[in-house]
């Protein structure tokens, strides 16, 4: 039972476990995010194969760089920012860029706009997350469950009047201490 509890773990704990070489933890990060990242890339690129490549490359880059990435805010923000950059980078390619010329030139004529970069970022994050509504029940559930877990951190933090950062560092300290103890127990076996 407890072995399956990865689904309940907050993103940052999964990242910590991945850094320590736990591939299973990484597969749960994939479980959580692949769906909406795929849907987002598929929307913009209009091609399933291209969207699949983007998602695969994104997870590969996350996995290989996980020790060096500074998750300034959250894993989700990092992923949403990365998928946007990768999609735009992909569009830049010859042959693909042609598909967007008309749409872009119409748009820049129409003008526009959310002028605040921060609001644009938040809006994009929301749009990407709304993509989970297009996933079937079970796939959606995985993400919603993990959000609830992430939420509970926030709630605990609010109830205790401390920052989420403190909660997270307390949890990771607790994990480290318990792990050392368990390590010692295993040695005795």
């Amino acid at each position, binding site marked *: 039972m407890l072995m399956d509890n990865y689904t309940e773990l907050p993103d940052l704990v999964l990242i910590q476990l991945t850094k320590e070489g736990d591939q299973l933890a990484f597969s749960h990060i994939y479980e959580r995010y692949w769906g909406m990242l795929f849907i987002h890339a598929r*929307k913009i690129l209009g091609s399933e194969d291209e969207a699949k490549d983007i998602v695969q490359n994104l997870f590969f880059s996350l996995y290989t760089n996980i020790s060096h990435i500074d998750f300034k805010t959250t894993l989700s923000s990092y992923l949403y920012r990365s998928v946007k950059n990768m999609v735009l980078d992909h569009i*830049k390619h010859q042959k693909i*860029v042609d598909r967007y010329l008309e749409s872009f030139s119409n748009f820049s004529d129409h003008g*526009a706009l959310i002028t605040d970069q921060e609001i644009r970022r938040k809006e994009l994050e929301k*749009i990407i997350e709304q993509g989970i509504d297009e996933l079937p029940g079970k796939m959606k559930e995985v993400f919603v469950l993990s959000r609830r877990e992430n939420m509970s951190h926030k*709630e605990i933090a609010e109830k*205790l009047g401390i920052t989420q950062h403190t909660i997270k560092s307390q949890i990771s300290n607790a994990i480290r201490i318990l792990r050392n103890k368990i390590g010692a127990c295993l040695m005795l076996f």
Partner: protein
Amino acid sequence: MNMEESTFKELLQKYQDGKCTPEELNILENWYLAEARKPIPEYSETQLAEVKTAVWEAFSEKAGFESQNHIPESKTVKLFRNLGIAAALVVALGIGFYFYSAQNTKNNQLVNQHTTPVVPGSNRALLTLADGTTVALDDSKNGELAQKSGIQIVKLADGQLLYRISKSTQKTGLEHLSNTVQTPNGGQYQLILEDGTKVWLNAASSLRYPMAFSNHDRVVELQGEAYFEVAKDKKRRFVVKTIQQEVAVLGTHFNINAYPEESSVKTTLLEGSVRIVQKTKGTGATVLLKPGQAAQFNVDRFDVKEVDTEEAVAWKNGYFVFDNEDLKTAVRKVARWYNLEVVYTGQIGAVEIGGSVSRFDNIDQVLQVLRLTTRLNFKVEGRRLTISH
């Protein structure tokens, strides 16, 4: 304008190199948002499952994963490690749950005193366009609400309203077309004006503003209460007109409480500077506020005080904060948000209220704060709140 292929490619390259100007970023990122809002052809559950497996397999092969399969394997070490994590989480969640349930028990005891559900307010408002068309705003649908005179009115995912003006649209004349956003009792709303100014509108309030501001100033009219984060524009001052006053700024954060039922308009400044001009009595009395100050017009002059600005904008952050506030003023705030009618029975003199409580709590939680500091009786029946000795 026809966007040449090379120009678009150059822009994408600049984006990648982080060399875009703010204007270029603005266009590119907004275009991207528009693309991201497009619908996607339907995928069946099986199709999605296939995509999921295919991508995972390609990834795990490339990354050299031990197993192509990501179903949990059983390893004793892993079990113990997870037990460790689980234990740590149980400790943390346990603490949280203790606090949560302790509070809940308190809530339940209060709820049991009566059964009528009185719910706190939510994001609700009515938008009236220049031609009289009305659009109900709530948390349900997002995207384009209306397209009028070359202006697209878009509701963002978090409920904010955004005005998007096409470049080809003649800006002249638009300043004469006003829109009004009006919140009912128990409603609040947040909007972003055409210049980027953000406005939070409290319950039972209305804001009237032009579709586009003119070249020399930015004028809006307020009734009720609003918090403004005015976009900086040194050339065009931002003016909020209320029945009694005009508040003029260049770019700053401030709160105006101008409900008709309150004795005078109260302006609280958080950042920057504002100039207030009284229009009614005192013919043109004026005052300049510094951050941390609040001004109220009293008989014939402005009363300026150093205040706790948190208190003035507590409503926007989801709280009622009463710092020795007059009972009736405090009760009016609560009644506007929970949509209650207030009845006082018997003589109730000057009473001051202190305390703070979430605006999203059960009404009893809020009334409990009032009870504690006043020793008065507060009773809710239907939509009526009766206050007595």
